[in-house]
C-alpha cells in the first residue's frame, strides 16, 4: 500500500517535470536557455518517473534502475556536447543575456599568452 502511494507520487512528480521541461523548450528565447530547461528538467523527470514504475512493480526494479542509470549518464554528456558545438559553430546569445564566461575566459587566456 505504502509502496503504491510512493510509486504514484514519483510518477506524477516526473510527469509534471517532463511537461515543464517541454514548455521551456517551446517558450525560451535562444539555444542556451532551451538547452538548460530541456536538459535539467527532463533528466530529473525521467529519472523520477522510471524509478516510480520500478517501485510500483517491484519485479521490474532492476531493469528500470539500469534504464535510469543510462539516462543519468548519457544526458549530461549530450547536452554538454550540444552546448559546446553550438557555441563554436557561431550561434549568437540572446540580446538580453548579460554574461558570457566562455568569451571572458578566451580573452583572459590571450592576455596571459601575450
Amino acid at each position, binding site marked *: 500500500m505504502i509502496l503504491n502511494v510512493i510509486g*504514484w507520487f514519483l*510518477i*506524477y512528480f*516526473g*510527469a*509534471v517535470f*517532463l*511537461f515543464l*521541461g*517541454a*514548455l521551456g*523548450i*517551446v517558450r525560451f528565447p535562444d*539555444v542556451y536557455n*532551451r*538547452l538548460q530547461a*530541456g*536538459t535539467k528538467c*527532463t*533528466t530529473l*523527470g*525521467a529519472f523520477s*518517473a*522510471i524509478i516510480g*514504475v520500478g517501485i*510500483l*512493480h517491484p*519485479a*521490474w526494479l532492476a*531493469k*528500470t534502475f*539500469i*534504464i535510469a542509470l*543510462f*539516462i543519468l549518464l*548519457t*544526458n549530461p*554528456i*549530450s*547536452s554538454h*556536447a*550540444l552546448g*559546446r*558545438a*553550438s557555441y*563554436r*559553430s557561431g*550561434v549568437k546569445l540572446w540580446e538580453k543575456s548579460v554574461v558570457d564566461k566562455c568569451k571572458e575566459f578566451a580573452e583572459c587566456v590571450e592576455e596571459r599568452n601575450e
Partner: protein
Amino acid sequence: MSWYIAIGIITIGVILTLIRALKGPTPADRMVAVDSMTTITTALLVLLGLYFKRYIYLDIALVYAVLAFVATLAVARYMEGGL
C-alpha cells in the same frame, strides 16, 4: 483512470518538443529539441510498458535511451567541425 492522466501529461510534453523540433530557426535548436524529445519518450515508453503489462517492452526503452544519444553526439560533432 490515473493512467490516462499521467500518459496524457507526458504526451503533451512530447507534442511541445516536436513542435519546436519542426519549427526551430537554427539546426542547434532542432537538435536540442530532439535530444529532450528522446528523454521524454523514454519515460513514456516505460510507462506504456507498465500499461501493456509486458516485461519485454522495457528493452525498447533501454535501446532507445542508448542509441538516440549516439545520433545527438554525431550531430554535435558535425556542428563543431570534427567527425
